[in-house]
Each structure stands twice: as C-alpha cells, then as structure tokens.
C-alpha cells in the first residue's frame, strides 16, 4: 500500500492547527453583545451596561433558561 503523501499531510495539519488556534482566540476574545437589526438592513449594537442592553440581556437570559442546556431541553 502506498504511503500517504507527507507534504500534503503536513500542509493539511498546518491548516487545521491554524484554524484551531483561530477558534481558541475567538472563544477567549469574544465579548457578549446585543445586536438589533431594523428595516433597511440597519443594525445597532447595545452595550451590556446601557439601559437598553441590560434589558435585552435579561430577556435573553430568561429565554436561554427556558430553552434548557441541550438540544431537546433535557439539560
């Protein structure tokens, strides 16, 4: 049986490593946000410490609670 092509394997591994590193950084760096979209494609972000943002986060928290932790709401 022919061996896998080492150069190709190394290259695929390098891409996978880079993607994994990107995802790790994204998980660490990403902050909570609330984004609203309006007619016409306009969007607006609301900080968690603003009045509107705080209300949105509280409402979102309640929905996350009612949905449960897992698919099917078993958690």
């Amino acid at each position, binding site marked *: 049986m022919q061996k896998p092509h080492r150069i190709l394997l190394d290259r695929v591994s390098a891409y996978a490593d880079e993607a994994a590193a990107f995802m790790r950084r*994204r*998980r660490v760096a*990403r902050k*909570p*946000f*609330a*984004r*609203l*979209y*309006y*007619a*016409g*494609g*306009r969007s*607006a972000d*609301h900080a968690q410490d603003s009045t*509107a943002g705080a*209300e*949105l*986060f*509280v*409402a*979102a*928290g*309640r*929905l*996350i609670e*009612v*949905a*449960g*932790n*897992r*698919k*099917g*709401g*078993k958690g």
Partner: protein
Amino acid sequence: MPTVMIQEARARVTVGSFSQMADAPAATAPSSESAEAALAFLTEMSPDLRGAAVLGPEGEALAVTSGEAARWAEDAETLFAAGDTAEETPVEQIHIATEQGEVFAIRSEGLAAIAVTERFALASLVLFDLRSILRELARGAH
C-alpha cells in the same frame, strides 16, 4: 455628500423597495401542526440549536421544542419589547450573544420565531433558517 447622508438615503430607498415586496402579514395563524413540523425541520438542520419557538400574530406560542409554551411567549414578548424601545423603532431581528448561549429572534410575515443556540452558532445561517420557516408557514396559512 457625507457618508451618513448617503447611508440614510440608501436606507430610505431600501425600505421603499421592501415595502413593495409581497411580505404581507399572515391573514390567519398557521396551525400548530405545521409550526411543529417547521420546528422539527429546524431542529434537524441545526446541530447547535438548544430550543426554539414559533409565535403567532397575537404573540401566542404555536409550537415550542421544549419547555412551557406560555413562558416562551412571555419571554419573547419581553425581548421584542426591549428591542422596540431601544431606539423607539420596531426591530426586525435580534441577536444576543451571552456566555451561556445565543438568542436569535425574528419577526416576519406577521409571525415571530425565537431560537436559542450554543455559543458561536453561525448567525447568518440561523437567521436565514428562521426567516425561511416563517415564510413557509405564512405561505401555508394563506
């Protein structure tokens, strides 16, 4: 012309375009069976989904994947109310990312859909799926 003015002009034109499209509210609410089928399809398509609900024209829960239907309706109403008061303008879509999960809400065709997903779900895909099921439900209700 300053950039802000261009953006405002574009928004006005776009709103005008959308108002011409056939996006009328559903004349009657879709049946609970069709809403449940739509949610079953959504659950099948979205591995990140934790739970979802479809709300009728009066804000009543037509179908939910888990939990109490009344609670979904109440919490969704609170969410949309918070969105509407943020800028005193009716909001179309809401995306809130928290450390516990992500919430997506959309109003279209006189109906509304809410989805709660794991963190880092692809927002464009989730919103597209929610809009699609609302469009299908509204089409079936006419």
